[in-house]
């Protein structure tokens, strides 16, 4: 089933969807840390809880700011009153943790039993006096990283349209200013720099150091970031005025983009994602172009970064990388790696919003053409079994895959890298291009170092057939 829809000549396929990935509720693991005054309540079953416990490993131990509202038989059979139950739990959370916001994460189970979270939240919010944001991060509708999308889309609706008071405005602006001081004199710091361009909102959860780095890069072009979604604190959610510009940082935020456009009347800038020196330059250039700013020194900056990663680039040059599909970062990474000299026969991807990812898809195609390599096959909702057959036939140098397949592939002599690491690592912007290649080359460097120790086949003949 190949579609040839615009704007590219890339081939798109859709398989059975029998692929391994993490549940979208995973997003609580990074969002509760990013939003320091939040509490995430995942309303689901023992299955959801056990997943969080195991997938998030050690993180759960030290009293995290997230928990399960574990549905028991009485909840499922509707013998218990949902409102009363949620009130009991949220009251306890308020008492023990007193967060600024409680985020309810709906799961497959709340969908199936049709629990009316959106209906219950406003009532309970009013009753206990803590904002409650509802996100349906369920596996029926969404894949792994899209959980963040559901939360940010819900939060976008909560951002103020204008600062409600002078003091409030000051607080929000200071929150941004605090991020960045550039050693200016205290007097200068007191003055929020009034920018010459319309407000620009960046959306997507990134680690704080990445936020700082991107802010610095944009500041070099005279661009001020008016707000981040999410902010470090729920109480510092940015003002989103009608007509503001917004640009996404992560490729899995199409719903948030739509919400910003439709409900908040923002102009969402479509650009490749700031992955690799090429993508970072394209991202900044696109922002400049929209804000009508003449970009300064970007070509030099890009060249300098390419120069600094040349050692790693040489390691990947001419090698073949296969994406099984996991976190929606596949296209941006493939585009950067092709630019590094790799070939990419297949990009599996859970889901593809061709509008939100349009600029990235175009850049991928252009990059392949410019590097003179074949266009990858794009496989939405892949079938892992079929992919493994293709991998066996192709024998790629590297497979970027979910955790379930890494060891079996390694045992068959195929180098792998966990896709999930790109979800957690700092990969955005010029400064982190090296970090991406560090990750990508690690299995290659490792297998070089180990040489022929024990050969490359770790399964006995009887089972290699699989």
């Amino acid at each position, binding site marked *: 089933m190949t579609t040839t829809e615009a704007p590219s000549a890339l081939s798109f396929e859709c398989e059975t969807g029998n692929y391994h990935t*993490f549940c979208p509720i995973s997003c609580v693991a990074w969002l509760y840390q990013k939003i320091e005054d939040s509490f995430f309540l995942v309303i689901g079953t023992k*299955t959801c809880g056990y997943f969080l416990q195991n997938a998030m490993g050690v993180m*759960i131990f030290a009293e995290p700011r997230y928990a*399960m*509202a574990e549905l*028991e038989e009485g909840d499922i059979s509707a013998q218990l009153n949902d409102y009363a139950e949620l009130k009991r739990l949220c009251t*306890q959370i308020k008492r023990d943790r007193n967060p600024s916001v409680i985020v309810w994460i709906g799961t497959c189970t709340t969908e199936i039993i049709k629990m009316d979270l959106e209906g219950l939240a406003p009532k309970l919010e009013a009753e206990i006096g803590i904002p409650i944001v509802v996100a349906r991060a369920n596996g029926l509708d969404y894949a792994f990283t899209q959980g963040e999308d559901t939360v940010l889309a819900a939060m976008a609706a909560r951002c103020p349209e204008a600062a409600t008071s002078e003091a409030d405005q000051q607080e929000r602006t200071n929150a941004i200013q605090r991020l960045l001081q550039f050693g200016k004199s205290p007097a200068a710091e007191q003055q929020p720099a009034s920018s010459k361009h319309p407000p620009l909102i960046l959306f997507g959860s990134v680690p704080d150091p990445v936020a700082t780095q991107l802010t610095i890069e944009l500041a070099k072009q005279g661009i001020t970031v008016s707000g981040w979604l999410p902010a470090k604190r729920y109480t510092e959610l940015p003002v989103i005025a009608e007509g503001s510009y917004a640009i996404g940082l992560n490729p899995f935020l199409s719903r948030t983009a739509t919400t910003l456009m439709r409900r908040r009347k923002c102009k969402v800038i479509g650009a490749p994602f700031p992955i690799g020196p090429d993508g970072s330059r394209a991202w900044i250039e696109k922002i400049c172009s929209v804000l009508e700013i003449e970009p300064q020194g970007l070509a030099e900056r890009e060249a300098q970064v390419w120069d600094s990663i040349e050692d790693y680039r040489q390691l990947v040059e001419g090698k073949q990388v296969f994406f099984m599909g996991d976190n929606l970062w596949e296209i941006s990474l493939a585009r950067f790696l092709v630019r590094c000299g790799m070939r990419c026969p297949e990009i599996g991807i859970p889901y593809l919003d061709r509008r939100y990812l349009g600029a990235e898809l175009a850049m991928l195609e252009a990059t392949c053409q410019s590097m003179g390599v074949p266009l990858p096959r794009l496989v939405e909702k892949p079938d892992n079994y079929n992919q493994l057959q293709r991998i066996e036939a192709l024998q790629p140098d590297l497979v970027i895959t979910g955790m379930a397949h890494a060891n079996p592939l390694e045992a068959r002599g195929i180098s792998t890298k966990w896709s999930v690491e790109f979800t957690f690592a700092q990969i955005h912007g010029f400064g982190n291009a090296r970090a991406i290649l560090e990750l990508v080359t690690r299995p290659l460097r490792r297998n070089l170092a180990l040489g022929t120790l024990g050969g490359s086949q770790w399964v006995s003949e009887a089972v290699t057939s699989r």
Partner: protein
Amino acid sequence: MKLAYWMYAGPAHIGTLRISSSFRNVHAIMHAPLGDDYFNVMRSMLERERNFTPVTTSVVDRNVLARGSQEKVIDNILRKDTEERPDLIVLTPTCTSSILQEDLQNFVERAKESAQCDVLLADVNHYRVNELQAADRTLEQIVRFYLDRAQRQGTLPSQRTEQPSVNILGMTTLGFHNRHDTTELQRLMADLGITVNAVIPAGASVEELQHLPRAWFNLVPYREVGLLTAQYLQDTFDQPMVAIAPMGITATADCIRQIQQVLNQQGAAVDFEPFIDRQTRFASEAAWFSHSIDCQNLTGKRAVVFGDNTHAAAFTKILSREMGIHVVLAGTYCKHDADWFEAEVAGYCDRVLISDDHNAIADAIAELEPAAIFGTQMERHVGKRLNIPCGVIAAPVHIQNFPVGYRPFVGYEGANQIVDLVYNSFTLGMEDHLLEIFGGHDTKEVLTKTVSAGSDLDWKPDGLTELNRIPGFVRGKVKRNTEKYAREQGLTAITAEVLYAAKEALGA
């Protein structure tokens, strides 16, 4: 609803999958939404399994919900039948899909019409049983299925093996140190001259199940998984079971003695006492280590034990009767089998705690301030917070429970490993303590403002000076005891004299 940060036992489908994936050439179809298949990750990552996990998710998404899942499930069963050629396919829902109220048994019947392999629906209630109970149940279900068929087909063996033999039941993938325990049990049986007729389910094929009745007895090392199967085999084939976990020197001897009894009742004439004596006193070093001077300082140390029934009960007894350690609290999260636990540890501990609420355990530990904890990963983290060492003795499993080096918990080598674990739990911190007892090596100005924080009593400078001379790992306790004493005596100021008077009065 239950507010939960952590659970000790996983959901039921994990138990079912642990059983089906343990067998050779058995595939599972999990009828569940995207992302519920993290069992595959756990098995692949924790066990460093070289083969792809034989579990395929038949994904339930919005479309499937709308159209019904029957077609997809049956398609997936038949597809795997063709692709993997398994002997058996086990179908299981998860908590989520089990509430769809579909007639999965009917899906199975439909699939069986076309499939080459056997197809079974795992028969567990996903809201009433946990991972351990589901594993126990699924194993029994599969065993019963094949033995019933063999009986119908007349292929059941008619008699026991000539020489004494055993089935070892309940060894599974993702089990706590199960792999090394299996090896150790096989070695122990070899030492006793007992043939291992079968180890199930780990590594067994379903074809082998019909041979189970040939063994002289069934050994169930962990009561969490295998007991139902052993009970079924006892009821149906009059096959005796030995269900004593051979963990620790004494329990291993007890287990061997019960095996001896079971064998001799069937006409053997074995005497394992000389073997037990030689192992206990010379071959294994665990018992001698306990008696040796190194362990003298463990005498009367206070410990908390928490885990599954098998390991928590075994450790309570090992600590108490084999190492002279004072178990102030023994607990289990196996609420469904609490009576057994209480009976088992009676007389070996001050207090019993049956709960699967990790906060209850954490609170008990904080209150009791033991010198060491033997628990799960959760207790280890509680210990970290409280600065109390913790040895991990039970599931939930963690990467550290799949060491490459040989680390069994059962049998005589297991007993050796256990005394190391216990000794090191107490002493890993000892080195730091020693340094602190001896006051470090250079004089430090210890100005601990915090030490008197939150106290309503007036700690005088000389009292504080003395308090700061107390090693850090007991300072908190001494402070509390001193303040308690001062309040009882109606004193408001705490001097050095008060501190020492309190120490004498409280005998510590």
